[in-house]
Each structure stands twice: as structure tokens, then as C-alpha cells.
């Protein structure tokens, strides 16, 4: 294999559109009401601890984790529970949720928490403490962080890759927190290293973010086994599999986890929250998101309580009438939202409000595949998306998975992005995977 210095072969270079890179993180005024979905993460939904009319303090746990692969929820504002019922989730389904109305007289400054001496905790206790913060992967995957910190029996992690790539266009939250709150990120890195017994950590940042590279390098304490790696600017540089290739020149085995090669991958935003919450023993109640796109009047990076309805955020930043699509996350892998009633969840790293001109989302004519092989040259996993697309059209889903490695696809969208025929390849692959899962389940 060709060795790629600080990157991976293939991938694409979408226009970066990082208009909000210079916008200092701003805190939005508290919303009058929040909706906390009980399932904002991968794993079992949390179980409500409060009932209608309960008074909650800001940061108080309102739902508990059910089992290990689950996280608790905390009240993002002090107020009164108005309902424990159902609300629209980002996928457009009605899901269990706790609704809290703000209490105008309550103290919104004081945050519930029990500070503790982290140095005295054993690794297992530390992982338990991480679960109690309710932290999940804030880059978008929303996988419970503490689960990642406990690799399967027999595996150990000696290297940490800290993902500060933010390779998605438009998004600038990770960049801003690296510039503004580098010291707390370092605290988070050190805590995770300690809990996992990792010997070294690499902070991976794309080379189009020199300020972040500099700020993170400065924040590393002398002698700490942490270093900054400047990586090539390329999408999807921030994907786990690509990072391990770029930083360590190792492949995560097909169907495996980074822990199989002794690697743990964490997003900077996740580590920032850990660095901030763990010492104070608090829960995750807010996050920084980028609100950008041509449909927004005041694009920027905002610190917003979780559960804030998107409608409220849009009222605060101003939405233009030309807005046609709201995307949670980036334009390459983000999910388009069906309604402004959906609340902010832990996994939303950005809200993009795109206009008709910006979208270019394949609404137009789909032409037949002309085998131009641009998808083959873009696929970072080295699949043949063109062939998979043809098989999907013929509903040969099993063959796709068994012969052509469909399950190695992580839906980065490169193939679809470059396709001149406008074929919705990723959508086909999602359908194929879903059909295969259904078939497996039926067996």
C-alpha cells in the first residue's frame, strides 16, 4: 500500500464553507421550554426519574441509565416538568421525552453537581463517573463515551486519537472549542488516558486550522505524552478508520473496533465536556453547535441548552424565508430535519439551514451510471460503489454484503458527492443494510 503522510488515500475535497470560523462562541438566552428526549444516544433509552409537576434544579438528573449501554439525562434548565410523554425526535418519530418549563424565579446560575477527587478513583470508578455525566460522542454518532472507554474483555487501548479534524463543511464548533477551551480538552484527554491506561495521545487536526493546532500545542503540559498531529485537509479525515490510518498507519479490522488495534478515538467536544463535567461531578446539559448556511441571518457558534426546540434557536439567530432544508450535523453525513419542533439533542454538532442554491442534494434528474469511476476513486474504504449501486437497484442486498463488503461502508457520502449521474448511492446502501438487518432478524 502506498504510504500517505498524515492522511489516507481517496476521499474528496468539498468546499469548506467554514464561514463561522471566526465567530467566538456565544451563549444563547435560555429557552422558555425544553424537551429532553430519553433516547439521544445509541443504546437503551434512559428511564424518567421525574413526573409531571416535579420541580427540577438546573443540572439535576431527570432520567437514569438503563443498563451499561445507556446514559442518564439531566435538566438543562431549572423549572417544572410539564409532561413526561412523547415528542418528535430527529428521525421524525414520536419518542419518549420529558418536557420542562422554565421557572422564572429559579436560580439558573447554580448547577447541580457533586465535586469529587478524581485522583482517588480507580479506572472503573472513573468510567462509572463518566456514565453519570451522561456524555456521549458529541461529534454526531452519540455513542455513550463510557462504553467506548471500556474495551471488550481481552482488548486494551494504549493509544488515544483525539479527533479535532472537523472535516465536514460548514461546521466550526470543534475548531472554536480548540481555540477557546484547549485546557479543558487536555484535562479530558488526561482523564480518559488514565481511565483506559493509554500511554500516549495524538490530537489530530486538519492543516487548514493553524490556530487550533497552535492553541492545542500550547495547552499540552510539559512532559505529557500528548502530541498534536497536523493532518491533510480532506473529507472524511475525521472518521475513526481514516484517523487510525492517517495517524498510526494502521487499519481497523473489517467489522471490528478501534480497540482491536489498541486505539481509542474521541472527539474533542466530548473530551471538553469530560474535562469540564467530571471534576465538578455535573451532567451534560448544554453543548456548542454551529448554526450556519445561507438561510440564517446571524450564523455563528452558540452554546445552547440541550432540549431547546430548533424553532427557538431559529428565532434567536433569524431564519430567512429562502430556507429550504435544516440539517442536523454537516452537509455530508448530517440528517435533514422534518420539523422545527425537534429539540436539540446531544449528537447535534450543527444546524445548517440551506437555501435552494446551496442544497444541490440530488433533487434533479438521475442519469444512468456511466462507469466514470469517480466513486471508486473517492471511496476511502476502497469499495466499488458503482457496482454496489447497480446491485442495489436489482435488490441483490445479500450479495452486496457478502461479496462486496457493503457492511464496511460507513456512509461518508463521498461516492454520492462526486457522482455526475446524481445517483443516490448512500441512500441505496442504507436501504440495503436495513433490508439485510431485517432479514437477519427474521431468521
Amino acid at each position, binding site marked *: 500500500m502506498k504510504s500517505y503522510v498524515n492522511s489516507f488515500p481517496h476521499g474528496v475535497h468539498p468546499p469548506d464553507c467554514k464561514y463561522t470560523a471566526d465567530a467566538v462562541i456565544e451563549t444563547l438566552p435560555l429557552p422558555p421550554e425544553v424537551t429532553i428526549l430519553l433516547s439521544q444516544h445509541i443504546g437503551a433509552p434512559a428511564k424518567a426519574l421525574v413526573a409531571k409537576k416535579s420541580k427540577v434544579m438546573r443540572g439535576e438528573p431527570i432520567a437514569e441509565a438503563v443498563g451499561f449501554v445507556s446514559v442518564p439525562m439531566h435538566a438543562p434548565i431549572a423549572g417544572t416538568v410539564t409532561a413526561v410523554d412523547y415528542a418528535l425526535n430527529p428521525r421524525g418519530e414520536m419518542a419518549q421525552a420529558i418536557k420542562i418549563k422554565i421557572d422564572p424565579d429559579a436560580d439558573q446560575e447554580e448547577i447541580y453537581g457533586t465535586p469529587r477527587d478524581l485522583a482517588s478513583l480507580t479506572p472503573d470508578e472513573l468510567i462509572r463517573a463518566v456514565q453519570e455525566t451522561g456524555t456521549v460522542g458529541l461529534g454526531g454518532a452519540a455513542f455513550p463515551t463510557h462504553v467506548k472507554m471500556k474495551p471488550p474483555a481481552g482488548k486494551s487501548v494504549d493509544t488515544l486519537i483525539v479527533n479535532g479534524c472537523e472535516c465536514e463543511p460548514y461546521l466550526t464548533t470543534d475548531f472554536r472549542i480548540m481555540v477557546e477551551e484547549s485546557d479543558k480538552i487536555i484535562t479530558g484527554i488526561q482523564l480518559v488516558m488514565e481511565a483506559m491506561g493509554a500511554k500516549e495521545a495524538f490530537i489530530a487536526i486538519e492543516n487548514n486550522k493553524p490556530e487550533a493546532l497552535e492553541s492545542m500545542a500550547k495547552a499540552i503540559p510539559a512532559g505529557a505524552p500528548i502530541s498534536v498531529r497536523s493532518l491533510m485537509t480532506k473529507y472524511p479525515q475525521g472518521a475513526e478508520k481514516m484517523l487510525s490510518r492517517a495517524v498510526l498507519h494502521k487499519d481497523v479490522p473489517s467489522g471490528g473496533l478501534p480497540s482491536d488495534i489498541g486505539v481509542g478515538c474521541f472527539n474533542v467536544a466530548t473530551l471538553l465536556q469530560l474535562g469540564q463535567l467530571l471534576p465538578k461531578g455535573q451532567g451534560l446539559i448544554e453543548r456548542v453547535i454551529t448554526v450556519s448556511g445561507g438561510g440564517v441571518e446571524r450564523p455563528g457558534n452558540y452554546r445552547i441548552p440541550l432540549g431547546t426546540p430548533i424553532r427557538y434557536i431559529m428565532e434567536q439567530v433569524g431564519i430567512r424565508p429562502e430556507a429550504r432544508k435544516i440539517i442536523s450535523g454537516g452537509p455530508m453525513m448530517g440528517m435533514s430535519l*422534518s420539523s422545527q419542533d425537534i429539540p436539540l439533542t446531544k449528537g447535534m454538532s450543527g444546524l445548517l439551514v440551506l437555501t435552494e442554491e446551496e442544497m444541490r442534494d440530488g433533487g434533479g434528474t438521475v442519469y444512468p451510471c456511466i462507469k466514470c469511476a469517480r466513486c471508486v476513486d473517492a471511496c476511502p474504504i476502497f469499495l466499488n460503489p458503482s457496482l454496489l449501486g447497480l446491485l442495489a437497484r436489482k435488490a441483490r442486498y445479500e450479495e452486496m454484503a457478502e461479496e462486496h463488503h457493503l457492511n464496511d461502508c460507513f456512509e461518508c457520502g463521498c461516492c454520492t458527492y462526486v*457522482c455526475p449521474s446524481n445517483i443516490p448511492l448512500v441512500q441505496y446502501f442504507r436501504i440495503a443494510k436495513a433490508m439485510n438487518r431485517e432479514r437477519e432478524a427474521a431468521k
Partner: protein
Amino acid sequence: MSTEARPLIIGSSPHIRVKQSVPDIMFHVALALLPVAAFAVWSFGLSALLLLLTTTAACVATEHTACLIARRSTTIRDWSVVVTGLILGLTLPPSTPLWMAVLGSIFGVSVTKSLFGGLGYNCFNPALVGRAFLQIAFPIPLTTWTPPDLPGRFSSLLPTTLTFPFLRADTAALADYIRTALASGGVDGWSGATPLSMWKFAEVPQFESLPRLFLGSIAGSTGETATWLIILCGLYLIARNMMNWRIPAGMLLGAFLLSGAFWLSDKTHYPSPMFMLFSGGLMFGALFMASDMVASPMTSAGVWIYGFFIGMVTVIIRIFGALPEGVMFAILLGNAVSPLITSATQPRTYGLVRQKRWIKQ
């Protein structure tokens, strides 16, 4: 702030795409062929113009009719069939009777493209299949050549151009016409050969001078003579990322190396590698026909092999075959093996340890 004026659009990611679409690519290929076509008209006059117009119109009409028969909306707007028509016209001798050109267009587009499901599903280059059909059906008219820059080429047609359909092209009348026209320009004698056939079939091999080959003042198919212009137009497509440069590069390299080996073994008998590259349809084939996306392999290692293969087969046919020119059959052969090359060169998927068997049993 009427935020609910229009419903939000939802859709699957990615939400952005590159702007270049299939019709864009095909349009630019057609555009890149125009200078070559213009040079053909300049060299060979009205007959070449009529020939190009005829093949293009016949190809478009064939595709449109095929779409009507198949009861689907017409696909002529994606420009791909225009490219086919232009390429077919550019690969035919200028004196080709128009009715044969029409027949070749119909055969190429209907059998190779429409029958297989239209754009994207053809395993061979339709223009080349059309030409191969004509070459086999009408070997004499397809190997009858006209010298370039003939006096009077803009005022009269070559005698064979308007041959009545299904009648034999009168090549003797053409030879007379050429002799008379050349005499009026003060030149006498016309061997009726292309540089390649002069090398291959002359008693003592004759090698056309490289500058003449490069500048295109030679006999040949309408569009294959001006090497310099073909290279420029090809570079335009490469610069716009509308052509995979590895295919022409591999093909030229393959032809260069193999013919170089022959040349070193016997310089009086075999032409120099540069002669090989600049003569006949090699340059045009490399840049505009072998690089056809649909019929070429999909992996980057595969396209090198494919190009190299075509280049070598071309040289082998030229040296050992019965025909002086081998580009057309070499490319068709390359088209035939391209799916095999694709599956043989499929790179290792990320995270997989072993490569699977490359040919499925």
C-alpha cells in the same frame, strides 16, 4: 420570520454534490471534438463536413427512434449520442459514401447501445462498433484514402460521397477525381496510401516525416490526422477532469515501449516509436475512444493495464496483422476485457486482511 411558510425538504445525505453532471461531461467531450472536426473539414472539404453531419444526425435519430420504440423518454439530450456520431464520422475516410455512414451509425448505436439499455450499459464503444461493422462489410471504400488539402475541396464533393444507397462506391472515379484535382494544383502522382500503409505495404518501407505526421498534412480518416490538435483537445478534457488521463498515458506508453523494442531490433524494417504514436488513429483513439468511461475499467490500476494492453495490441496488429491499422480492433478488444480487468484489480477493502479470489467461479 414566517418560518413555516413552506415545508422543509428532507432527504438522504450527502446534501451537497459536485456540479458536474453527465450531460456536462458529454457536452464538453463534444465541444473538445469540434476543433478536430473543424480541422477535418479544412483538410478534406465539403465531403468531410457532410460526413460528420450525416453520422451525427444518423446517430441522434437512431437513439431517438430506439427510445420511442422502447417507450421511454428520449435520451438524446444527454449529448452522449452526439459524441458517438462525431467520433464515428471522424474515424471514417473522407470519401466514405454517406449511405454507408448512415448504416454504420444505425448499427453502432442500435446494436451496441440501445439494445443493451442505453447510456452506461454498452460494453463496447458504439462508434467503434459502427466503424468495425463498416470495415468488415465494405473493406474497399473504408480503405480508400484521399490526400489532404485537395484543390477544389470546398466547391465540389468527392465522387463517392453521394453514391446511391446499396450501390458499390466507384473508387475508380474517385481516383480519377483526385488525380485531376492534384494535377490542377501542379502535383502529380498519388499513391492512395496513408503513412501506415506506405510503411507496411511498400516494397521498401517508407517512413513519413514526423513533422508532417504531427501537423496532419497526411492522408487518413477525417479526424485522425492532426496529432497536435487532438493532443490539445484531449488536454482540455483532462484539465476539466472529464477524462481519465491514465488511459491515454497507458496506451501511448504501451505502444511506445513495444514499438520501441521492435525498432531497436531492426531500424530499417520497423518504424520508430514516435512514428507509431503519431500515425494512423492512435492518438485519436487514445484520447477520445479508449478513454470512453463506460467501456473502460473502473480501478486506477486497471485503467493503466487497459491502456497499456490496447497500446501493445495496436502495435502487434500493425506489425503482424493483415491490416495496416490496429487501433480500432485493439480498443474493441480492450473494451471486451475491461470488466475482467476491473474485477482483477479491485483493491483491498479497508480493514480486510486477505484479498478474495479475483475471478468468481
